[in-house]
């Protein structure tokens, strides 16, 4: 299938609708051949739309902020620790949690494709999968952070984790000041997706979201 095949088509429809037609055709072929049940494809999409998302990671982070034994277990073996929580147990075997400290900020990328902890954070955003982030994160992480409006003290060590294998990384951000006595549920509300990738911070208590 080369791009040249398309030159004979009329150009009334956009490249997008061209793609849409090809995707539909492939789905017909796969279902007609008996490879996949069409309803099962619907169910996959629905599962992604409803079951995974950054709320899973946020609950893990909030628990680590309030429960020192859980935090220790999480940093030692994140798959095992998360597996002990009923609500997010389907995390696979190779999750690694990495802790931000005042001296060190962690940031996660996949320069080769788009590896990302789906079970913890959902499907990755477009920018995570796109060339600007993948190319620059390992060479100019401070410049990338500036694109997110994030700046760190110039002496802070920045550790970039390139996800080149099946290990998946979850950043454990620092707990915001002014949250003493907060419940896990309240804290989870402050945990943003980007703070668990390392391209942002948790929300500040009282700040407009």
């Amino acid at each position: 299938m080369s791009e040249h095949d398309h030159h004979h088509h009329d150009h009334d429809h956009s490249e997008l609708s061209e793609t849409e037609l090809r995707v539909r055709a492939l789905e017909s072929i796969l279902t007609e051949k008996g490879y996949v049940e069409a309803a099962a494809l619907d169910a996959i999409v629905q599962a992604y739309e409803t079951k995974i998302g950054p709320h899973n990671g946020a609950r893990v982070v909030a628990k680590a902020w309030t429960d020192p034994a859980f935090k220790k277990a999480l940093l030692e073996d994140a798959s095992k620790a998360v597996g002990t929580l009923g609500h997010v147990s389907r995390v696979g075997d190779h999750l690694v949690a990495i802790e931000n400290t005042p001296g060190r900020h962690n940031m996660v990328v996949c320069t080769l494709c788009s590896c990302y902890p789906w079970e913890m954070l959902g499907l990755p955003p477009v920018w995570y999968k796109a060339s600007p982030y993948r190319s620059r994160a390992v060479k100019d992480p401070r410049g990338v952070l500036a694109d997110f409006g994030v700046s760190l003290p110039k002496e802070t060590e920045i550790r970039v984790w390139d996800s080149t294998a099946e290990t998946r990384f979850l950043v454990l951000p620092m707990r915001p000041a002014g949250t003493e006595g907060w419940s896990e549920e309240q804290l989870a509300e402050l945990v943003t997706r980007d703070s668990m990738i390392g391209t942002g911070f948790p929300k500040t208590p009282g700040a407009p979201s």
Partner: protein
Amino acid sequence: MNGVHDMGGMDGFGKVEPELNEPMFHEEWESRVLAMVRAMGAAGAFNIDASRFYRETLPPQVYLSSSYYKKWFLGLEALLLDKGYISKDDVASGHSVALPKSLKHGKFSMADVERIMVRGKFGRTAPAAAKFKAGDRVRAKNIHPATHTRLPRYVRGHVGVVERDHGCHVFPDTAANDAGEHPQWLYTVVFDGRELWGPDSDPTIKVSIDAFEPYLEAI
């Protein structure tokens, strides 16, 4: 392979542009592509390494100008054609005209959906003792495999330190070519930013990759 997908350290792609309140899918067809890739993989048509390799082997200009799910679609179609699950006549007519090929795990049905929402296991029994341990200084080999590899170009030839040992995992370099899992020890190896990007680069940066043992040599 030294493809455009291996973009760590490249310049010129511009700013990162986060989208506020980004939807999970921008077009409905994107979700169908995701579902087809997951279903056909689970049915045994290919493994995750092969699916990555077929996206990497898209022509560079197509790779760089296609959206994420367009790349997934093009890679999926090429892979299914190559492995004989679909034919050129099927694609040309938009319907199945050729006989189906049997799938290793059979038809993907509703009963399989829950299974694929749990991440696969890639850890394997170690065939040999680990060569390296945390704290060892190692060099990423200067190798340029022509097929799939997970050793990015920007670390090749550079010296780093083993930080973590993740046990033995499926080796993508062979698994992608249907040449077997050949489990290998996997380590997080950390490189100083100046080792990778030169003496004038930001001294506060450290970059790690997860490296399979065959990617590394003792120094």
